[in-house]
């Protein structure tokens, strides 16, 4: 299936390179958000998710939902690099007539479970999938990746209450906690802290890790559930724009598209990575 052939470090590097190229080609936003979650998605697709690229609807697969749909380019890249569809298709991203929309879409894209783009939808759908697996006694797990800013949406907290109440220990919420949202830092917009304690108070087991440390990610996402009868929340501390020095930790690169010298500089930096 090819997915064991490259390391998660190499997969993450390719996701980042694709993200910079795809957003540049399409003139689209959100490159910072994709760079932020590249390591999480690489470890998921490289080491964690039980999926079959040649049989994307395999009933026993783990379900993965990207709730922060604006980082769809990162998931498209991961799917292409792990064999769900040809890598060349990524060139159509954001182009006229393409089905690779800026926000992740399932139509015509093998491996995408749920189209998102409006924030605060993924966790509820994940709850339904996890509840169904419990009813049916099935062992697969449901992973939902959210952004930090997305946690402003009240619908998430409805789902967090539900999952805790129903002890959905086959459900994992991963927070790409890069501390920057659309217009400003999270702490200056709508503070989430004490964040881990909020999830714990809602009945979740919480792990806080460095979201760019592949060993830590793999350990946190593999040992599920962390606590019996509790859903798991992995708060992954990340850096927005990670991997391209001038994109790191800025609000600007939530929106800006790399062109010309910036594009070349970004790609050079990414080539220099392990």
């Amino acid at each position, binding site marked *: 299936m090819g997915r064991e052939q490259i390391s998660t470090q190499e997969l993450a590097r390719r996701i980042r390179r694709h993200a910079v190229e795809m957003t540049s080609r399409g003139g689209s936003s959100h490159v910072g958000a994709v760079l932020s979650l590249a390591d999480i998605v690489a470890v998921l697709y490289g080491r964690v998710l039980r999926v079959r690229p040649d049989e994307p609807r395999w009933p026993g697969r783990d379900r993965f939902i990207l709730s922060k749909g604006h980082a769809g380019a990162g998931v498209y890249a991961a799917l292409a690099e792990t064999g769900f569809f040809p890598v060349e298709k990524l060139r159509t991203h954001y182009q006229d007539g393409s089905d690779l929309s800026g926000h992740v879409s*399932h139509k015509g894209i093998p491996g995408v*479970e*749920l*189209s*998102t*783009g*409006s924030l*605060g*939808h993924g*966790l*509820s*759908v*994940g*709850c*339904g*999938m*996890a*509840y*169904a*697996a419990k*009813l*049916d006694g099935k062992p697969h797990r449901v992973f939902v990746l959210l952004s930090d800013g997305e946690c402003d949406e*009240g*619908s998430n907290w*409805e*789902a967090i*209450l*539900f999952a805790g109440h129903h002890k959905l220990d086959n459900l994992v919420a991963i927070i790409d906690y890069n501390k920057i949202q659309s217009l400003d830092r999270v702490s200056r917009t709508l503070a989430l802290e004490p964040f881990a304690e909020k999830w714990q108070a809602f009945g979740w087991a919480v792990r806080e890790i460095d979201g760019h440390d592949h060993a830590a990610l793999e350990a946190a996402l593999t040992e599920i559930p962390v606590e019996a009868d509790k859903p798991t929340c992995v708060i992954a501390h990340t850096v927005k724009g990670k991997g391209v020095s001038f994109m790191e930790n800025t609000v600007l690169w939530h929106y800006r598209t790399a062109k010309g010298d910036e594009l070349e500089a970004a790609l050079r930096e990414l080539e220099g990575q392990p």
Partner: protein
Amino acid sequence: MRDAFVERLMELAAADPRIMLLTGDLGFGVLVDPTPDGTKPRYAERFPRQYLNVGVAEQNMTGIATGLAMEGRIVFTYSIANFPTLRCLEQVRNDAAYHGANVKVVAIGGGFSYGALGISHHATEDLSIMRSLPDVTVVSPGDVWETQEATSALVETPGTCYLRLDKSVAPPTHADGERFELGRARLIRDGHDLTLIATGGILGEALVAAEDLAMRGIECRVLSMHTIKPFDAEAVVSAARETGGIITIEEHTIHGGLGSAVAEACLDAAALPGAFSRIGLRAGFSSVVGSQQYLRSVYRMDAPAIVRQAETLLGRAT
């Protein structure tokens, strides 16, 4: 209507374990046994594995329903008035409808069913809003039989559907052996002077009006338009061509609902009715409260109002 719906759903759920019902914490005595000693088991007690009270959280309810549907279930979401539709409209649109998920949204309390509770509970824009969503079937039955048959039909209809139920019911009019078909209007009585097209329990007012008009020498065709989408344009065009005019009757805003759909169907087919009038809510929000019957009277949607409108339309007003 809601009891007819729940009774039929219990029959269906007994036969098909894929069926699930999610409620947003409503349905005392309807879904849930109201007795302290558990002597009247309802859906919740009879089908615990096919039932889930998600709490007062309609956005989450609709998302969960989508997730369950994606895993092979046929999921009904249940609440009152605008809660399972407008409160979570984006979840209905993006999650359920866009994914073709087998989610059946059920609202009890259509129109002015909960008229005395105030505008939060007046469901008077739902048909036009739900009708505009792609890939959503919209059903608004008029009597008990239509409600039961529609419930069965929705289980057989893939994808996302909306079932609007109201407190009032028209008297039974179905013939023995009559077959219910989604998207096909029911011809309840025939006449050539005028056609009355109604949706929902207000069909009862149309039937009373038709009786009254017959005594005044005006013979009406009456159509029950229980399905708003897909829409039976053929029945409408026939009414425009074969009868003297059309009056539409809905307990709903006149903007975008049944009356609009009828007008669109006529114009699209270049079949202009000899006369045309839409009976529905024109006043905007109703800050006046009262029973369903009272508000129908205030807003001129009841049988006497239909009779007056028919006579005016045909130039026979006295």
